[in-house]
């Protein structure tokens, strides 16, 4: 009756082998390491790079204890943190700016385990230390910038087609242009339509398409006014495009920071999560991530008379112009039309002007940027151009040189830097790309490194001592059956840790708490079984029959109670954020493993102990009292 067929023992043995294999990497500890990654996303690291670095390190007398070369990174492991730091600076000198060298920790578990995919658990930021940012796109700025861009493209197109317009402005998200001739309205509408693509509202290939823009024509005293408004879906596209660009940009910026294993993910439609393990200098991280630093090139207004400036200071700038200030606070009137933005920049670097000794940033424009720049400089010789650095809430004219001659080739130098440090910072920001729209940090969670270690100790101690207490309680109360339950519970812990390691779920402090709590709750299944067996003996059944019936009857109850707990766990996972999610993952997995170990593993041991004997006198399940009125 209480005998398992041998395949069941094989299954249990296999799961335990799996459990042990995937759990042991957690016990090997970690070594300091450096990680070398290409600075540009999508880049590769050649194997020769590794040889070069190893040679250089040998010359310096540093001997790495291990090296791992992967497609997009190289990791070198060292004995001490001093060697690690030294190796980092050596590598940085050798590799230059094409690569990023970050400090990291690598598991010491043997290679054959790692090749099986058996890695230590992936620790969350609250256990390893680091920063978590949630950044949100400034939506109002997104459509504002889009409209600005649209209007300047439109003006250029109208000029090329020689369409006469005499007033163009943006008012409350609507572009408004005035014409003298009615025919021009249709021409302009065609131009605008060409700028945005229609999108089918019933899926691809459907006949019905919505337009990217809606138009409103009005006539007023012989003036023909065209109002252009972006449709809602075009707005959505704009937002998603802006977010994609920002993701890319933030990737590059994080690379510049030199962080091993960063997480940069989209969340919802307008947010980005950034997790930087091990980063301690939060101020620097925030500055680099949060700086919008959009570079805009615009032309100065031809008339800079003091009267006009004074009127502009009172909020009455001439139409089409805007008042800016340079670094010294001097006001200047600048045309609203944007010639170029930082998007057209493909490279930027700090430098020193040979003539004046001043710090400069030299930038290289892409093909279309170079063409536009060439055309603008040709048409505006003798006029002044402004380079404006737009940050979150401020715009500042860095420099406003007079265009002396046409500039081709797309190489531009920006003077007016305060010092070399600023030149370096601005170059970095321009190189790492500009954000399509400003982002604001709406959530920040920082955990210091010592706090991380402390948190691990807290979670692990809670689990260990909770486990010990359960062990004593169970073996005292249920004797042999109690001990078997404890063995099943240990198997549960093994499976849970193995599963968490195998799927590389992020383990957080609430997750550790969930491990402890799951153990406390998982024992319920064994308690139910043991109590049922006692019940059966009380009812006068033979020991063998009691074991059989006990497991049988407890099963339904265990299933029902675990499914309800599972429902709660899944809801936690779906709606939970941050700490709740970490808790939920472990909780749900723990419920699943506990059902297996409480029923199969404990049964297999009980069967092994009792099932082989034909007749047994009594079960070691603690003292059982008879009940009278049953």
């Amino acid at each position: 009756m209480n005998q398992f067929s041998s395949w069941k023992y094989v299954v249990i043995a296999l799961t335990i082998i799996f459990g042990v294999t995937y759990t042991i990497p957690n016990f090997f500890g970690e070594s300091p390491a450096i990680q070398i990654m290409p600075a540009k996303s999508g880049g590769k690291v050649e194997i020769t790079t590794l040889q070069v670095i190893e040679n250089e390190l040998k010359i310096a007398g540093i001997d790495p204890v291990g090296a791992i070369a992967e497609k997009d990174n190289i990791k070198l492991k060292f004995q001490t943190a001093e060697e690690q730091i030294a190796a980092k600076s050596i590598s940085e000198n050798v590799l230059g700016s094409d690569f990023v060298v970050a400090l990291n920790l690598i598991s010491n578990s043997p290679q054959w385990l790692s090749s099986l995919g058996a890695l230590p658990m992936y620790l969350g930021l609250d256990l390893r230390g680091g920063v978590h940012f949630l950044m949100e796109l400034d939506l109002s700025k997104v459509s504002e910038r889009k409209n600005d861009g649209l209007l300047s493209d439109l003006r250029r197109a109208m000029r090329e087609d020689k369409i006469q317009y005499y007033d163009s402005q943006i008012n409350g998200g609507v572009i408004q242009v005035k014409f003298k001739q009615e025919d021009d309205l249709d021409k302009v509408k065609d131009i605008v339509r060409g700028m945005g693509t229609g999108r089918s509202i019933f899926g691809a290939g459907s006949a019905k398409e919505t337009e990217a823009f809606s138009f409103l024509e009005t006539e007023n005293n012989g003036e023909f006014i065209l109002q252009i408004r972006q449709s809602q879906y075009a707005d959505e596209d704009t937002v998603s495009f802006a977010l994609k660009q920002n993701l890319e940009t933030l990737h590059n910026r994080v690379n510049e920071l030199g962080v091993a294993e960063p997480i940069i993910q989209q969340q919802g439609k307008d947010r980005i999560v950034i997790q930087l393990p091990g980063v301690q200098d939060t101020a620097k991280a925030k500055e680099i991530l949060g700086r919008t630093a959009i570079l805009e090139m615009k032309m100065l207004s031809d008339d800079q008379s003091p009267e006009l400036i004074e009127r502009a200071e009172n909020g009455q700038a001439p139409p089409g112009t805007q008042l800016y200030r340079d670094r010294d606070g001097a006001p200047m009137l600048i045309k609203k039309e944007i010639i170029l933005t930082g998007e057209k920049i493909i490279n930027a670097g700090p430098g020193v002007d040979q003539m004046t000794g001043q710090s400069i940033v030299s930038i290289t424009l892409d093909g279309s940027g170079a063409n536009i720049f060439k055309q603008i400089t040709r048409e505006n010789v003798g006029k002044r151009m402004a380079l404006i650095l737009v940050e979150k809430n401020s715009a500042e004219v860095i420099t406003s040189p007079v265009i002396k001659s046409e500039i081709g080739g797309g190489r531009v130098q920006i003077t007016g830097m305060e010092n070399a440090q600023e030149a370096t910072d601005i170059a970095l920001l321009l190189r790492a790309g500009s954000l399509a729209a400003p982002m604001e940090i709406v959530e920040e969670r920082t955990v210091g490194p010592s706090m991380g270690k402390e948190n691990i100790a807290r979670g692990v101690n809670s689990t260990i001592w909770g486990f010990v207490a359960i062990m004593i309680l169970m073996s005292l109360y249920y004797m042999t059956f109690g001990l078997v339950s404890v063995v099943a519970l240990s198997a549960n812990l093994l499976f849970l840790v193995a599963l968490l390691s195998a799927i590389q779920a992020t383990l957080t402090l609430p997750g550790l708490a969930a491990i402890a709590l799951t153990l406390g709750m998982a024992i319920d299944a064994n308690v139910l079984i043991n109590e049922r067996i006692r019940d059966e003996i009380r009812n006068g059944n033979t020991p063998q029959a009691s074991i059989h019936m006990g497991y049988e009857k407890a099963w339904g109850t265990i299933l029902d109670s675990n499914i309800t707990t599972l429902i709660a766990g899944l809801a936690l996972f779906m709606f939970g954020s941050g700490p709740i999610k970490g808790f939920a993952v472990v909780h749900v997995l723990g419920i699943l493993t506990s059902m297996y170990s409480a029923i199969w593993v404990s049964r297999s041991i009980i069967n092994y102990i009792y099932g082989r004997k034909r007749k047994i006198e009594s079960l070691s399940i603690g003292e059982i009292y008879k009940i009278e009125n049953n």
Partner: protein
Amino acid sequence: MEIFRVKKDIPFMRFRRISAIISISIFVLAISFLSLKGLNLGVDFTGGTIMEVKYAKQANIQSIRDTLATINLQDAQVQNFGTARDVLIRLPLRSDLSIADLSEKVLASLKEKNDAVEIMRVESVGAQIGEELYEDGALAILFVCLGIVLYLSFRFEWRFAIAAIVANLHDVIIILGFFAFFQWEFNLTVLAAVLAVLGYSVNESVVVFDRVRENFRRMRKSKVEEVINNAITRTMSRTIMTHLSTQTVVISMLIFGGEILNNFALALTIGILFGIYSSIMVGCPLAMWLGTNQSNLARTEDPKKTEQEII
């Protein structure tokens, strides 16, 4: 060893009027604490900043307050926790400062005053995010309740489902009542504990109900009250053992878990203690009052199987 040497069924249901009075009064008390004092919501829900810093030597709270006042942060709450070297600083949301700037400003000013300060933890949440986390939390509770009611209606029947969920919400309200009365901080981690209690407490009700259903099949001639009393008495030993085990783990968390897990463990403790009471003295009388009996519960089972089980 058997601690619970119960020879006769305990007539739990005889006390159902008293327990109803007790339950309702605790419930009303909890609700009034909640409405009068309200929950002390953590920054996760209200938005704001918490900073935990550690000094090399004993921290001077007054001097930290003065330092913060110099950068216009008079509304900061500064307090010790754990050891004399650990300081917790709470800052409300500011309209003139972004949350990113706020923590940097505080850290810079503290470092300027005393360099031997280490940042342990910063949690800054914007107002919008706080609101969303609050809504998500409420949604999670709602979803859990619905899911449980549906599952129990399907596995048992609607009377049990309603009784179980009321017993559960009773526990949740009491946990919240405790948090309101003592003004313990209610944050995301505590919410996780509350939701875990929801699952855990239902677990408790399911075990008792399962036994009630089985008894209805076994004790065909007994009255509903006797059937329920027997079910509770026969599961008593299991109830105590399971809760004892879970509680030992939770106590271990209270001892070793530190600041972050402290309130989490507190919520679980209250949930576990009241979970026992509510599944017995709230869930069962309610199921009885709703009219649970043999015909509407045992009916769904296959009669042949029932016969076998009686043997």
